[in-house]
């Protein structure tokens, strides 16, 4: 349990990735972060396939931070997979995107996203958002109990 990975960060943009990691580190949340650089990698990780076939489904991330614009499999498709499969549907997913398309937001909520955040241009706001996000989902929010995932 102690080495359980806490956040799966799905982000293809290296600069966004670095800035996000920096803020997560500053908020002391970066010690257990897994990074996926595209949708396929994210799904492989979540469902313990391919390079992650040795992993156990019993230890899901406590939070998935998901970008929408991703290579190979896009964010909405990843979200759909997570929320439609019993072994992963209890995992909280937060969409973090620079998209302001209302349609993306509506679609995400319909697919069962737990939170939808638009990346602010202003760095201070960005920093506060990352900090609040980690604090809320990893500290304030009660994660689903582990047996939620072991019943399958």
């Amino acid at each position, binding site marked *: 349990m102690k080495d359980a990975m806490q956040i799966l960060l799905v982000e293809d*943009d290296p*600069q*966004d990735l670095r*800035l996000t990691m*920096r803020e997560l580190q500053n908020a002391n949340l970066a010690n257990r972060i897994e990074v996926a650089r595209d949708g396929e990698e994210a799904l492989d990780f979540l469902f313990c396939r391919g390079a992650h076939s040795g992993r156990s489904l019993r230890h899901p991330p406590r939070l998935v931070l998901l970008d929408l614009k991703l290579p190979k499999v896009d964010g909405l498709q990843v979200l759909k997979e997570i929320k439609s499969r019993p072994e992963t549907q209890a995992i909280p997913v937060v969409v973090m995107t*620079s*998209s*302001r398309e209302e349609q993306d937001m509506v679609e995400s909520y319909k697919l069962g996203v737990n939170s939808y955040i638009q*990346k*602010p*241009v*202003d*760095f*201070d706001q*960005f920093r506060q958002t990352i900090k609040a996000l980690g604090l809320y989902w990893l500290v304030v929010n009660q994660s689903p109990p582990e047996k939620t995932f072991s019943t399958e």
Partner: protein
Amino acid sequence: VKVSPGSFNGLPLETKIGSGFGLALVALMAVGMVQHRSIEVLVETDSWVAHTDAVLAELEGTLSAVESMESEVRGYVATGDGAFLSQQQTWGSTPEEHLRRLRVLTADNPRQQGNLDRLNPLMERKLAFQHQLIALRSERGPVPAAELLAHREGTTLMSEICALIAAMEAEENGLLAVRQAASRASAGRATRATVLGSVLAVVLMVVAGWIIHRDATERKRAENKVAELNAGLERRVTDRTAELLAANQELEAFTYSVAHDLRAPLRHAQGFSRSVLEDFGGQLPQAGQDYLHDIVRSTQHMGRLIDGLLGLARIGRQEPRLEVTGLGVIVQQVLQDLKSDVKDRDISWQIGDLLFVECDPGLMKQVFYNLIANAVKYTRPRHPAVIEVGQTAHDGQPVIFVKDNGVGFNMKYSGKLFGVFQRLHRREDFEGTGIGLATVQRIVRKHGGRIWAEAELDKGAAFYFTLAALEPQES
């Protein structure tokens, strides 16, 4: 009646139809007149037949009176019996009566009158001869009387009378024959006129009908052609409108996506500049730190520009969601939002009564926010600033206005006022993106309204706008 087709075709339809039916009418009237005349002749002929019958009867009466007188006298001469003379007193009067009536009946015929003139003395002589015979018989006995009776004079007289009466009968019959022939001729004319006139009228009406039909067909064809052209035109307008709409949407989508894609690198530039300042700021000389702060400020400004552009593009892409909204409430919300901007300012607010109108409340708030924020910004040098929001009338139409006593602008630049990225002040004097008023104008237009400004440099500015919902209600 014949009109050459060329010049006839040039006539208006009404003239063609009118002349066709008019000529048919004239033909029918002529037929009617000929028939009327023919009937008159027939009636006249009929009365002449009766007249001739009357004349003939009188002539017969005269002849029979003379003959009965003759036979009675012969009877007396032969027998000496006075009974034969019982009618003696009518011998003179009866033919006289007939002759008198004949004179009246044939008063218009000089020939018959002449015949009568000759008949009268013959009759008198005959009567006198008969009296002579009677006297001879009664005085001298049957032999001398019989001798006289056989005398040539008596026989000649009688045959003359008979011949004259026969001549008069022949004259009358001849006249009747002439009149009957005239009547037959008249009837024949009437029949021919009827046939000819009717045929002519029918032909004229058929021609007129054909002209009407031809013209109606032509008109129908022309109408169809016009309808076809109209449909084509409408189709083209629809197509062009659709093309224009598509082009416009494409442009909006392009603006949106460009503005959107600019956000990420901007965030990075700002983020890494801040990271350098935070992580290694202490190692940099002051100038280096200042440059990084400038980069951050520039990215912040660009962020606002992009947000403005995105907002503008979004307004273009969406239709206003209309609901009845109190503009006064919106103004109060805007003042609430601007609270932090005005907390150190000396502003005299003059907010008038505003109507409830049908509008998109979110968009209308942007309108008031931009106009009032502008007023707040450009009155910064004023102590106190006076900002007025209210409603007035312009050309009998309700108009909403936002007025201030700020720095204003020169009206010769008013054409640039609502253009994107157009600014009338230097950024170091008054910050801004140059997108606010373009956004306001776009929202007002989306609501079917119009916006304009009046200003004077260093005196203030006033912005006026109308909304379709503010216009006088139509049914």
